């Protein structure tokens, strides 16, 4: 079974803090993704990566950056957290772009 893990289930941070969300997958998948999920808005893609050190902007990259130094790990960085970044963050991976994605359990981030 594919396993995608995220470093925290719940996180509370203060405005202006730098926040790191970590995601690890154990199936040697090429592609990894970061989404945020908000009620009524569905899943919105923040960034994705199709190879180590490669990244592509998704639909809402503003205020975020990513890092993929190793194939299995994809980090989402909030350079200076703001209250409008309070959300559920989901990580996913897939073998190839058009294969199904496997999701992590999510991190519910609250910025106060």
């Amino acid at each position: 079974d594919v396993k995608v893990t995220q470093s925290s289930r719940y996180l509370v941070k203060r405005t202006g803090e730098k926040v790191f969300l970590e995601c690890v997958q154990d199936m040697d998948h090429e592609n990894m993704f970061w989404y945020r999920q908000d009620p009524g808005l569905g899943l919105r893609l923040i960034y994705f990566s199709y190879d180590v050190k490669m990244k592509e902007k998704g639909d809402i990259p503003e205020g975020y950056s990513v890092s993929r130094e190793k194939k299995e790990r994809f980090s989402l960085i909030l350079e200076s957290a703001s209250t409008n970044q309070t959300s559920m963050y989901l990580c996913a991976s897939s073998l190839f772009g058009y294969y199904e994605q496997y999701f992590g359990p999510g991190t519910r981030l609250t910025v106060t």
Partner: protein
Amino acid sequence: AQTVTQSQPEMSVQEAETVTLSCTYDTSENNYYLFWYKQPPSRQMILVIRQEAYKQQNATENRFSVNFQKAAKSFSLKISDSQLGDTAMYFCAFVGVSGNTPLVFGKGTRLSVIA
């Protein structure tokens, strides 16, 4: 750009009954994949079913089946013999095979199964 539309934000169904969730999509590609994902309350998103556009036969997985109408760009999910554990958000998703592009998701349908 591809879009996926789920026109039913919320639905409910009695236990043991059948329910159909709607999904339409827009694309100019001829070869693509469609998915239904399930996200139970406070639990991980999991894949329910997958359909390849080049296959005419509708995909089935136990109590879950799809009605894929390629010409109409419609991809509905039918859940038979609904169970309380089917209560979840359901997301329809599309991906083309022409490039290394990510899945496009609909906004989801919240399904409640009532005892």
